[in-house]
């Protein structure tokens, strides 16, 4: 360690610990810490003061919806993890075609987004709302694809839906759509539904309609290819759905 270098850098220790150095300065100072016991000791000593700073903040209660939303994601990921290890269960392909076929089998009209959403909801109930696994005898078309599915947390307009939360579970391949899960949404009056939209390059495409139970929980399909999409959003619309969103989204999943 050179004395000149120490004298040049010793003044940086406070700014370093407070995260106030520019990136290149931080790298330079960290390299210096490895070779300078004087600065290293001082950094260790002053770190206790920095670690006390967050404790100076007066505690305020965190919003109840925050824990609900956080634990919803955690539980969804646990279900997916546990589901992945279940031997008798195989993943259902997350394709629009698959949703349509399943809808037909249930006597619903294929092609309607509402039907697709209903299938997703039913599948969720059958499998413990886990991740669209089903007991089936079909050939293994999509081996292990659920193993790397991804969950994105939704941003919710807390002024309109204070207790709301949601997350979008994406399969590894974005071409195969996704499932949106919501919690804490207000059950709508008769004549209204929640509508899911996909935003892509300035275009807004309707995906499905859904309602929520008394507990505010619900799920809906996003059947379109998500490749290149910007966001999945939810609005409240008249029963039957709208051609275009009639309000700003209450829930947004940025892709």
């Amino acid at each position, binding site marked *: 360690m050179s004395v000149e270098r120490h004298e040049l850098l010793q003044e940086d220790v*406070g700014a370093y610990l407070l995260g106030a150095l520019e990136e290149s300065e931080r790298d330079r100072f960290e390299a210096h810490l490895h070779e300078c016991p004087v600065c290293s000791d001082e950094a260790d000593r002053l770190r206790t003061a920095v670690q006390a700073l967050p404790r100076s903040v007066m505690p305020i209660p965190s919003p109840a919806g925050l824990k609900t939303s956080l634990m919803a994601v955690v539980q969804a990921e646990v279900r997916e993890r546990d589901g992945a290890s279940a031997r008798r269960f195989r993943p259902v392909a997350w394709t629009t075609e698959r949703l349509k076929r399943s809808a037909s089998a249930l006597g619903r009209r294929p092609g309607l987004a509402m039907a697709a959403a209903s299938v997703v909801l039913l599948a969720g109930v059958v499998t413990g709302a886990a991740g669209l696994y089903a007991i089936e005898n079909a050939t293994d078309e999509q081996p292990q694809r659920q193993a790397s599915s991804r969950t994105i947390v939704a941003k919710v307009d807390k002024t309109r839906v204070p207790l709301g939360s949601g997350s979008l579970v994406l399969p590894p391949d974005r071409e195969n759509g996704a499932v949106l899960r919501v919690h804490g949404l207000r059950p709508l009056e008769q004549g209204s539904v929640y509508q899911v939209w996909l935003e892509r390059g300035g275009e807004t495409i309707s995906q499905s309609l859904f309602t929520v139970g008394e507990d505010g929980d619900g799920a809906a399909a996003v059947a379109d290819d998500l490749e290149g999409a910007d966001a999945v959003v939810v609005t409240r619309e008249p029963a039957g759905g709208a051609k275009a969103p009639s309000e700003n989204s209450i829930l947004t999943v940025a892709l």
Partner: protein
Amino acid sequence: MRLVQEGNPRAFELLYDRHGGAAFSLAYRMVGNRVTAEDVSQEAFLSIWRSKARYQPDRGSVRTWVLGIVHHRAIDALRRNLVHEKRRSSAEGIEERHEAPEREQTDVEAARREEARHVRDALENLPKEQTRVIELAYFGGFSHSQIAEMLQMPIGTVKGRMRLGLEKLRKGLKEKVA
């Protein structure tokens, strides 16, 4: 913490119950609005959950570790959002938002408030110019050069005040404990 590292959701929930309030309070103190503070807190806890936690007991308490993660996330949020730009014009905002609304307190909450008062007293006992640069850096997420520009002083002075201020704060906290 071992159970959290093993991916136990109940253990994770307990971790949130214990430290979620402090995490949200810190995030709110830094970003200045509830929605962003919620995002920051959620991102921080999800990163703990997903990374299966790399907590090292020899580096401090669990609370210190959690708050360190929240602090980093809040800094990221400040630097990527316009929030920073809006607050730049009013550095006073950094010193505000201390008082929480009065409500019925549990013993734990009362202890936390007492601890907060204790650290704040030590911070407020520093020369004002030292408190200011420390708060702008830690809670505001500003770099030393940004602070120098805002306060119109040389960068060397800013760095010196940070270093001196932290040393005095450390001694002040030590004296209060002793």
